[in-house]
């Protein structure tokens, strides 16, 4: 297929989901983000700890909205976030003075590492990027960033996914663990 022909697409988009799927996705995401946001803004507000970062919004799309996707499974959620966080922090420590270089390096390396470890999780790219472009508070965490907020918050969201996603008769989570 020629280069430009490939851009035509030609396939069809998958069908829309039903109302109950939309509702359960909403409930799941609400219950999943709620505890990490609460920890962030109420319990640890006056500390240097961060519990919520932007990439969890993206994880919520997958683990509450597309729960059958291989990208949304526990291995990918936990592995993708933690591996990407470590890579993001390492890249920032090495190239932090050149943010224009550290940013693409962190995201690209995180994707490569997630592919290689079978943990591809799209929000992981954001987690790596945030380690580079994030606030002073994030930078101050160092490699601790991979544990809190990334590891612990991902784990809380996983626990919510395991309970909420299995309440509905038509839903089941996960498809696989490892």
């Amino acid at each position, binding site marked *: 297929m020629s280069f430009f022909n490939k851009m035509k697409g030609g396939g069809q*988009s*998958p*069908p829309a*989901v039903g109302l109950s799927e939309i509702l359960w996705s909403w409930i799941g995401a609400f219950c999943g983000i709620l505890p990490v946001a609460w920890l962030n803004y109420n319990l640890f507000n006056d500390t240097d700890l961060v519990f919520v970062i932007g990439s969890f919004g993206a994880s919520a799309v997958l683990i509450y909205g597309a729960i*059958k996707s291989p990208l949304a499974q526990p291995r990918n959620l936990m592995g993708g976030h933690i591996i990407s966080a470590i890579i993001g922090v390492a890249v920032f420590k090495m190239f932090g003075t050149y943010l224009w270089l550290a940013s693409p390096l962190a995201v690209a390396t995180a994707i490569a590492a997630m592919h290689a470890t079978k943990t591809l999780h799209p929000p992981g790219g954001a987690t790596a990027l945030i380690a580079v472009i994030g606030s002073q508070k994030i930078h101050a965490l160092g490699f601790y960033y991979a544990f809190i907020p990334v590891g612990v918050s991902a784990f809380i969201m996983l626990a919510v996914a395991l309970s909420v996603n299995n309440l509905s008769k038509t*839903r089941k989570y996960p498809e696989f663990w490892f």
Partner: protein
Amino acid sequence: MRISELEYSNLNISNEDILEAMKEIPGYLDITPKDFLELYHKAYRHALGRLKSAIKARHIMTASVVTIDEHKPLADAAQLMANFDISGLPVIDRQGQVSGVISDKDFLKHMNITEQTSFMHVILSCLDSPNKCLARDLKGLLVKNVMSSPLISVGLETPVLEVADILESNRINRVPVLDQEFKLAGIIARSDLVRALS
């Protein structure tokens, strides 16, 4: 239709079929219909390949085989085939190796008729004039004079579909199965193939 043609005829799943099926599964499926179709085609070919080689000759052969020595008179072969109600026998040589196969077709071939001879021709010739009965031509012949050789055989691990091909392309009705030491291990007749598929 031949099994090898299944590949091309049974793959006609339409885009609509896939979309309908996707709607039947609740939840968001992270795949496009086109990707699914490609996946399905490839999986189908794998399944077909597995089926083609899964059933081996040893699974469907008849292991207890009635055989005959190639130096025996033809009448002995006829007697055996009549007794066991079978239409062919593997022929064994002095070393105990299979040297050929003898079947009712071979009997017919050796009667003095140029055209294709059938069982009914023999009946007619014997009814018309007993002195010219075609079966008389066979008197005095030995099994080795009449048997089909060189031997067509298959191995224990030959896939059943390959066995079917061998029967069909050689226009034979049975084929001996030989083990690793080329000793007779069994025989597969067309009827064994039908049984394996049913």
